[in-house]
């Protein structure tokens, strides 16, 4: 887990700002195609920033569920509160102002449409006369997760401190907990699926390609920016019997692309379940959890009650939301009155 003696307290998580576009485009370019919600498309990224600014500015009573929030992780260079009380070193050593990553929240998945997933199910067939019983894995196209709040667009630069990834991912959970009226209590995150050595998805090749006759990126391009639901609507609506799929596709079900390992593990440690749903295009895992059951949320307290350990803490207000890592004994006055905190290192029993 995160070594506390190098706690990078100078990293600041904040809402994306209009002048982050260049840096955000740089992050998107580095992220590659695995993160579908973070494409290197300057116009699209500009729209994402606008949407996020609008989302943060929307009052609770005016929210509709279409809000999409985007946070960035920035090296502030200030080492805010560093070292106070703990005697530990702090600071990332990174150039001030540099963006290290981004992460988002979509208030309601599938807003205005459907959010498709395959749900793993098992059916048992039995014949007394033949003396046989067989359990068969099936994939059911479903809209179960429509309306859930969706964690999106997680990307952190390679080599960033481990604690930075914790801050970037888990600060979103504190934001969700602070503003429950704006979100679902069911939280979902999609992760990229396995690709073969040629960069092709065995899952898509076995399923989507049969109905589109093309690679998934081509299908997406052909859809002309329509939602994934548009493509999903053209897929078989009946359950898929997994044993009928090629071995490579079966092996790809629920398998994670290496690029997703870090954010995936963070959410699994939070208590997300990744066994029930998969992405309908590449078979990657879709993690799901109830907000109040997530470890960070369950352990969240006013910072003063957790002061003996390194924490992840944030402001309580939507406007000017900030979150950062806080060393033991640091009151984090820069985060306003009564910052909400959760231990950086979660106890196993939380």
């Amino acid at each position: 887990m995160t070594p506390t003696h190098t706690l990078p307290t100078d990293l600041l998580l904040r809402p994306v700002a209009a002048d982050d576009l260049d840096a955000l485009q740089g992050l998107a370019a580095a992220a590659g195609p695995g993160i579908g919600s973070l494409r290197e498309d300057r116009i699209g990224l500009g729209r994402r920033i606008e949407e996020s600014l609008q989302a943060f500015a929307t009052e609770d009573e005016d929210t509709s569920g279409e809000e999409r929030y985007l946070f960035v992780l920035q090296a502030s260079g200030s080492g805010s509160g560093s070292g106070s009380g703990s005697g530990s070193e702090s600071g990332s050593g990174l150039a001030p102002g540099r963006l290290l990553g981004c992460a988002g929240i979509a208030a309601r998945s599938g807003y205005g449409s459907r959010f498709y997933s395959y749900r793993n199910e098992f059916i048992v067939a039995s014949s007394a006369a033949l003396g046989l019983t067989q359990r068969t894995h099936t994939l059911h196209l479903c809209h179960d997760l429509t309306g859930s709040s969706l964690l999106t667009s997680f990307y952190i630069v390679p080599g960033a401190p481990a604690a930075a990834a914790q801050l970037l991912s888990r600060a979103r959970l504190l934001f969700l907990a602070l503003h429950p009226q704006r979100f679902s209590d069911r939280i979902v995150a999609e992760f990229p699926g396995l690709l073969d050595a040629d960069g092709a998805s065995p899952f898509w090749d076995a399923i989507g390609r049969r109905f589109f006759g093309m690679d998934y990126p081509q299908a997406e391009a052909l859809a002309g920016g329509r939602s994934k639901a548009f493509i999903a609507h053209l897929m078989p609506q009946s359950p898929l019997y997994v044993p009928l799929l090629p071995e490579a596709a079966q092996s790809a079900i629920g398998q994670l692309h290496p690029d997703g390992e870090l954010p995936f593990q963070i959410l699994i440690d939070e208590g997300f379940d990744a066994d029930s749903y998969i992405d309908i295009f590449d078979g990657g895992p879709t993690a799901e959890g109830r907000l109040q059951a997530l470890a960070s949320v369950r352990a969240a307290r006013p910072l003063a009650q957790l002061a003996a350990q390194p924490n992840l803490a944030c402001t309580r207000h939507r406007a000017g939301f900030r979150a950062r890592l806080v060393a033991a004994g640091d009151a984090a006055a820069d985060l306003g009155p009564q910052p909400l905190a959760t231990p950086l290192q979660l106890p196993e029993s939380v």
Partner: protein
Amino acid sequence: MKPTFHIVQTTVAPPEAPPAHEPGGWWLRAQTPDGRLLGTLHGLPEQGRSRARCSFHFGRVVHSAPELGLYQVQTTLQLGHDATGEAELSGLFLSAAAEAPEAVADALLQAALARLADADTPASWVIAELPGWRDTAGCSPFWDGLVRHFLPPGSLDAADAAQRHGPAFSSHLGEMLPRELIHAAFLSPAAQQALGRCADSHTTWLAALQRAGFADWRHGRIEDGGPLLAAPRRAGERRR
């Protein structure tokens, strides 16, 4: 040349013939004046009364998005009991010694259809199942491409099970197979090609059934994908 055989109705199953698919009904024998068996079939006025009769319906679904130029017609398989209540011909057998097997098959079918046309049955159709295509090793691509995936690995030899359970094997097998729609595109190419394809051993019967007015019923046997053919039951009245 006038056929040198005649048709005899009996309730006794000829030992040479494959078993009737269900009990009841009657047998027709084509035999020479000296009693030599040339062919048989079994007629049943209403099938599915003694056991569940399963078949796959071969259907179509269209995946279409005109604005994207996408238009795909997909073949589907749906397990069901669609033939239940229809009349049936089974026990199809032609002796290798028959000099004119086509004539024997034609005569048996004509006689059977005439009897079924008069039968007291709610059936609208007369159904005939033919065994599915097999490769030179005697293996069914349909079994390999679909059926075996829904059985515990190595648990069942199709030929042994069919021998042990007789015609009821397909009903038992139906309990193991998927109830939901299957897209044929998920089957192996060989299995797709076997859908509704008759075994080479039964092409004489296939041709005779077609001459008698039977047509593809867009259903297949669940164990090997062999075709189900159907003719309107009352059509037999017009043939007399």
